[in-house]
């Protein structure tokens, strides 16, 4: 699972409608795809993603992961032209895969497991 996936997922448990995003991410095992397997560095795609992404959620999540990457508070027109910044984003959004971990709802504390790189967002019958 990539951070871009985390950035589009919220808790959907019955009754949980506020403060259900972003999910608290715990990454117990992660790896970077090597250049052969990862999508190539594509500045145009990253710039388009910047328009769609929930920036604060990404920035906060990255700051809790201790990956040694710090994202700026605000996105700006200059920033999305900056090569070093886009390379950071490429690493964070495209190359890095969370293999094992959890996502926890900040509101109801429902835990969504990530196993073999696959997040399980399915709810039990009594949760829908």
């Amino acid at each position: 699972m990539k951070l871009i996936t985390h950035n589009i997922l919220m808790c959907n448990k019955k009754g949980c409608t506020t403060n259900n995003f972003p999910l608290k991410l715990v990454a117990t095992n992660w790896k970077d795809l090597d250049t052969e397997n990862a999508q190539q560095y594509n500045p145009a795609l990253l710039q388009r993603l910047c328009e769609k992404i929930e920036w604060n959620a990404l920035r906060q999540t990255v700051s809790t992961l201790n990956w040694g990457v710090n994202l700026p508070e605000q996105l700006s027109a200059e920033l999305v032209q900056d090569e070093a910044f886009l390379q950071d984003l490429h690493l964070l959004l495209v190359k890095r895969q969370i293999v094992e971990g959890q996502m926890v709802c900040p509101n109801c504390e429902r835990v969504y497991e990530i196993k073999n790189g696959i997040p399980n967002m399915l709810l039990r019958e009594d949760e829908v």
Partner: protein
Amino acid sequence: MHSNQTQIIQQRQSSLCILQRLVRVGSGVVINSLQKLLAQQSFNDAIYFGIDINIKALDVTLRTAIQNNCDVQVIQQSFCHNFTNLMKGSVDVFIFNPPYVVTPEDELMKAQQKRDIEASWAGGKDGIQVLMAFIPKAYEFLSEKGVFYLLLIEENLKILKRLGKLFDIVYLVKRECPGERQVILRLTKKQK
């Protein structure tokens, strides 16, 4: 499918693509169809999400993607239930392979609850019950110029009336497979 489809998608500057339900009974994994749909290089032009409720379907998709040097983000979820509002109007390409086989309604319920591989084909009355529930979602999440590909069989075409209210429809492919006639529809949002 044809290479001019690739051009259409590229012109539309896709960044988020979603494949809904990944395994197609009899003809394998939907990602294979997608690979034919898109030229290899355009895999670098978008992020691909693959969604299914069945973990086996997701595993197969991941393995197939790696073999084909594609990168697909798989999520085990039902419809788009866990997508944030931010995703609304943001999906540039939607590919949905609904469970389309005509089955009794209770069989559909059982298949969905068990989240077993049967859920990948049991479609209830006219084979369109799951699809009916999904259409408003697809419309909501699709971007204004987004493209929605729908893989069906002829028995499902009662759905056209419903689809026609929201989308412009193009028949892309009709092909005979053993036991069924498959149809691929290309849908775009009706311009208001």
